[in-house]
């Protein structure tokens, strides 16, 4: 039984790492891999409107005759990149705020945590929705809107970890020895918080991708003719019954990438934190 668990773990690891690698490769090599790269950047081929999948067009063509396969490949350069950017920036902002709150405690902690409470009380998709209408539609606006909604999660996580570490004797010792705040934080507090953060971040890339795609689907993300997956599904909405290939492939791409991220999160968690009871990743 133990053997089987280990084997299952290894399969998941291979799947997650292989999948993540493949996604990165596709994003990097999209211009090389895509059979019709110009279709992703604003070409049109009115002689090839709405052709079903074939040898020439693996995923068919869309309402402007563009190759869906090429556009889906190029899509790996938009949604996932936005997601990684959002998580990275949120991680930095959230960590700083969380560490400050957890380390210093007192009224600073109270103030910062009530602030995060306010942000957390508005579901992320809704807040991002409101923000995305304010900001210029596009990948950058999307990234900003999502970052504003995402940092509180990390702030709270880091604050908790920090607070728990700060009480331990060796940190007291550090303080007693007169080590500076910054040094204590960077050397002793942060490393302790990094594992749960890493786990959360890898899962969250998938979560952010889903929310970002949702916003795109509502028309608040990148604008046409950007081959963003969420946008492609939205554009295919009225074609779904008659031309299934327009929306099916981009949607599947979102699912695939999100799935790989979640799996990666699981794998990382199993490695570093086997006793963890999963907390839901914020998706809305």
């Amino acid at each position, binding site marked *: *039984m133990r053997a089987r668990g280990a084997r299952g773990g290894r399969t998941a690891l291979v799947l997650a790492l292989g999948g993540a690698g493949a996604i990165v490769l596709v994003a990097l090599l999209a211009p090389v891999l895509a059979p019709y790269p110009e279709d992703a950047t604003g070409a049109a081929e009115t002689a090839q409107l709405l052709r079903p999948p074939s040898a020439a067009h693996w995923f068919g063509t869309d309402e402007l005759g563009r190759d869906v396969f090429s556009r889906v490949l190029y899509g790996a350069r938009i949604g996932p990149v936005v997601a990684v950017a959002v998580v990275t920036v949120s991680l930095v902002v959230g960590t700083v705020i969380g560490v400050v709150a957890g380390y210093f405690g007192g009224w600073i902690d109270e103030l910062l945590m009530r602030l995060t409470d306010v942000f957390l*009380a508005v579901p992320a998709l809704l807040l991002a929705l*409101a923000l995305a209408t304010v900001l210029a539609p596009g990948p950058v606006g999307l990234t900003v809107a999502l970052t504003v909604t995402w940092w509180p999660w990390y702030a709270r996580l880091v604050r908790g970890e920090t607070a728990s570490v700060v009480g331990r004797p060796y940190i007291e010792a550090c303080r007693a020895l007169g080590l500076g705040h910054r040094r204590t934080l960077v050397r002793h507090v942060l490393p302790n918080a990094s594992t749960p953060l890493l786990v959360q971040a890898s899962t969250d890339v998938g979560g952010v991708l889903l929310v970002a795609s949702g916003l795109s689907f509502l028309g608040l993300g990148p604008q046409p003719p950007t081959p963003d997956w969420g946008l492609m599904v939205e554009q295919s909405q009225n074609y779904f019954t008659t031309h299934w290939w327009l929306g099916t492939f981009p949607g599947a791409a979102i699912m695939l990438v999100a799935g790989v991220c979640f799996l990666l999160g699981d794998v990382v968690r199993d490695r570093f934190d086997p006793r963890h009871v999963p907390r839901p990743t914020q998706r809305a």
Partner: protein
Amino acid sequence: MKRARSGRGRPMIRYAARRSVLSALVAFGVVVLTYLIARVVPSDPAGVWAGPRASAVERARVRAELGLDRPVAEQIVSYLTGVSRGDWGLSVLTHRPVLTDLLTRLPNTLQLVLAGMVIGLAVGIPAGLFAARWHGGTVDRLVRSGALLSAAIPTFWLALLLQTLIASRLDLLPIAGSYDRAVMGAHPVTTVTGLPLLDAVLTGNGVAATDLLDHLLLPALVVASYPAAVLARMVRASILDAVGEPHIQMVRALGFPERVVLGRFALRLAWNPVLQLTALIFGYSLVNTFLVEAVFDYPGLGRYAADAVQSLDVPAVVGVTLLVALLYLAANLAVDLAQAALDPRVALR
């Protein structure tokens, strides 16, 4: 014994009071936050109000009528006092009080979310239980990969797939909307609770109930997908976590069949995390319905919000945000209190 009982009651009350005050504070923060965001929007509410082809004169008239010519600070203050009195402003799109609009839409969304959560719980908990029971086996692997997939599937895409396959191709369920006009015309539902489906059931209006259920099923299934996945994972993990506990060993030694050991004793430990999760999922699902309603043309808050966002109907956008945040806070508060009631150790922490 007396000491123990009073000792149990007091922390409970103090705990409830503290949680309520905190929730109220957060709610106030949400109002300010949403209003600030909405105020940044460079919009022309008077233009929306007066219609796409209104003249400049007409727009100026409307601007004065809506008080939009006053300083922004004054507008915020009057908005905040209004909200506290139940006046959430007028929607520039529908020309009606925002609160009235929201309350018209809320029952449908609530109905959808609740149905989704019920399905999510009904599927997720047993799935997690089975996975834990046959831990490491085929069932477990199926549940785990199923949960992974249904968490990773984009809601709107799942909605489109189900709509196309089940409603459009197979014609098993209605493609969209919340009821069939003809059915409702012949069998109108008497309002009791405000939730149409529940009302139809309560008043014994079988025809209407069937029709409402027809329309609710697909969207609710989509809404349920994520809750089911997370709950399954959580229940599985909690049970596996509990299985090694001595008290589980103990009930096994007392002769309980494994079904009861896991389903009653181990699962009971998962109640608290499940509850906590349920509140979180509730908030998530509330907003997730925005995407689901967009696909299924379900006339709830989500579609109202989408319309409002599209036309930058500021009072409506702020109103939706506020309402959802309040619902979410209320759910969290309720769960916190329920948790404390279920596990007295919580209130003591």
